């Protein structure tokens, strides 16, 4: 163990990216983010190794590792696995203790999470199948318009109109989009409609759990400015500005939980 600090790590393996955060005594020390491959063990290890490299540490220097995300079920490098719902709650609370509501949009699902002042989950709801409200939908649309995923938001924000998106299915929405373009609709207006359609799905989740300020937007899709605006309009809220890359929140929460587990198990005082 390094004599200069106590290190804990969280690894979040999702459908699109694997993320890792290392805490030193309670401060964020290093992070890692890599695209997910088919093998979730390898993806998780890649993200973790990237963070370790940045930190100048070895895996043995870590006191405790918690795995989360869909890849958590096969994370042999982790001491324990915890769902990303609980991790997002802890991670958000760690950085923004006034937040009481989290909107998380990942590659294949979206979540509405209510938390208390300690970052414990009070209630949550997630999208059902085929509700066209996820990062994957945006990825498909970026492909249709041949633009970079990270540019989708700003393109949507430049729209002068909103073309309503009809389909409840991502696959069908793709063909609808092509026919709209053929009819002369402007790409930015279509994209604006798509963002609003997704925001509507999110709003549907919140009808179950309710919203309380402050509100935080986590997950990869949170980096999409168009999505942030559409959600703010749909939910009539203001979203707090994230202190770190919102895609890392799950891994951060896992690291916080790792620290707590370590304390509970007597591995650290």
């Amino acid at each position, binding site marked *: 163990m390094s004599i200069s600090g106590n290190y804990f790590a969280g690894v979040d393996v999702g459908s699109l990216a694997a993320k890792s955060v290392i805490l030193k005594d309670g401060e964020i020390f290093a992070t890692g983010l890599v695209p997910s491959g088919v093998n979730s063990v390898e993806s998780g290890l890649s993200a973790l190794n990237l963070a370790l490299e940045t930190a100048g540490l070895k895996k043995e220097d870590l006191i405790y590792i918690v795995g989360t995300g*869909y890849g958590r079920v096969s994370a042999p490098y982790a001491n324990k696995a*915890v*769902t*990303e719902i609980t991790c997002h709650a*802890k991670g958000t609370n760690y950085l923004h203790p006034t937040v009481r509501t989290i909107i998380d949009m990942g590659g294949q699902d979206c979540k509405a999470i209510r938390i208390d002042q300690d970052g414990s989950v*009070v*209630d949550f709801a997630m999208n*059902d199948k085929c509700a066209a409200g996820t990062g994957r939908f945006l990825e498909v649309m970026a492909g249709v318009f041949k633009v970079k995923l990270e540019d989708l938001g700003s393109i949507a924000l430049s729209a002068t109109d909103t073309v309503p998106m009809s389909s409840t299915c991502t696959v069908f929405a793709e063909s609808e989009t092509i026919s709209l373009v053929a009819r002369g609709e402007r790409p930015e207006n279509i994209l604006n409609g798509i963002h609003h359609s997704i925001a509507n799905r999110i709003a549907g989740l919140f*009808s179950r759990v309710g919203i309380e300020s402050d509100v935080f937007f986590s997950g990869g899709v949170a980096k999409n400015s168009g999505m942030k605006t559409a959600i703010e309009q749909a939910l009539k809220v203001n979203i707090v500005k994230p202190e770190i890359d919102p895609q890392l929140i799950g891994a951060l929460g896992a690291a916080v939980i790792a620290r707590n587990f370590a304390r509970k198990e007597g591995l650290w005082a």
Partner: protein
Amino acid sequence: MGLKTLEKITAALESRPAELEQLRKQGKKIVGWLAYNIPEEIIYALGLIPIRIGQGGDGRLVEVGARHISTKNCVFVRQVLGQFAEKTDPYIKQLDLVAIDATCIQLYRLEELINFYFDYNTVVLGVPRNFATKEGHEYFRKEVEFFTKKLELFAGVSLEQSRLEEAIKIYDGIREAIKTLYRYQSLDNSLLSWRQVASVINAGYNLDRERYLELLQELIQEVEANLSEESGTREVEARIFLSGSLIPPGDTKLIDIIEQLGGRIVGDDLWSGLNFFLNLNIKEPTPYGVADAYIDRVPHGSLPYLDLKSDGRLANLKHQIKEFKADGVVYHTLRYCDAFTFKAGETKDVLGNIPFLEIHTEYSGSDFEAIRTRVEAFIEMIKSKKEITELV
């Protein structure tokens, strides 16, 4: 140490299809039936053999069934249709008549399709949507009377009051026994689990009713004899109550997930589970008496009820959650089961502070991981609330 009677029940079930074959050769007729309001006592009292049909959990059969209906219909209905299409199920292929009630309108459609596409004799029992009104009761009495006449024609005998009285006695016995078993499975010091009670209920759909009652009584005795002395100091567990759409035999996905993640199912208000056995008091051994008793039980979610405060199904749900000391409710809804899906938000509102998770699913395995995540987060949430020391 397992419960020996459960093994006996399993063995009885295994030999039942062959037994039915023999009975048919002797001239006995088998009536397959679904679902909540079919008066089984009348079928039994006419000397017919009632077999409750319908399984879930098989994505392949759902696809087969969907060819005759649509993908926009309840997965259970689609699978049952698939079972009738393939006729490999040992019970389905031995049915002489199919009796379906119209409590759930999609099941009524099932009857029409079975009759048209698969050439089964069918009979429908109409059920009033306005089940709480005087005219609804009147209508249902006439329906049960008509249903009885049709069965009499089919059976070739008239319904005798003494036979009906006997049948009612047996079924009352079965109902009491199931209620007793439910009480035991929720205790910390009994060997019986909810899952075992569910399998016993499923077995009962197919077994000879008198034999079944005997087995149930044996099981109760065995459970009572094996109650442990300790009052139960189990580690912090998440006591889960199941509500929502039916969970028929064969559909174990959600149950498996809950148990694998350390949740403990302690009760349910499913119409395919406990509710079926509650509050059924046949005062008069006549078709009218049977009709009144059936329509006055805990209401089925497919029958609309327009006043929230006096809703009997919700009142029962609240009561059972307390009775079984549940920590949280998993509200299971099948895709396109609008009766329960539309009421998910309302049920959550009515139940108030108790943790509530809706799982909206179908019979394919593709959402296994997604459901796992939701249930796991839910159990984490419950446990962290319950623990004295902080988990995280």
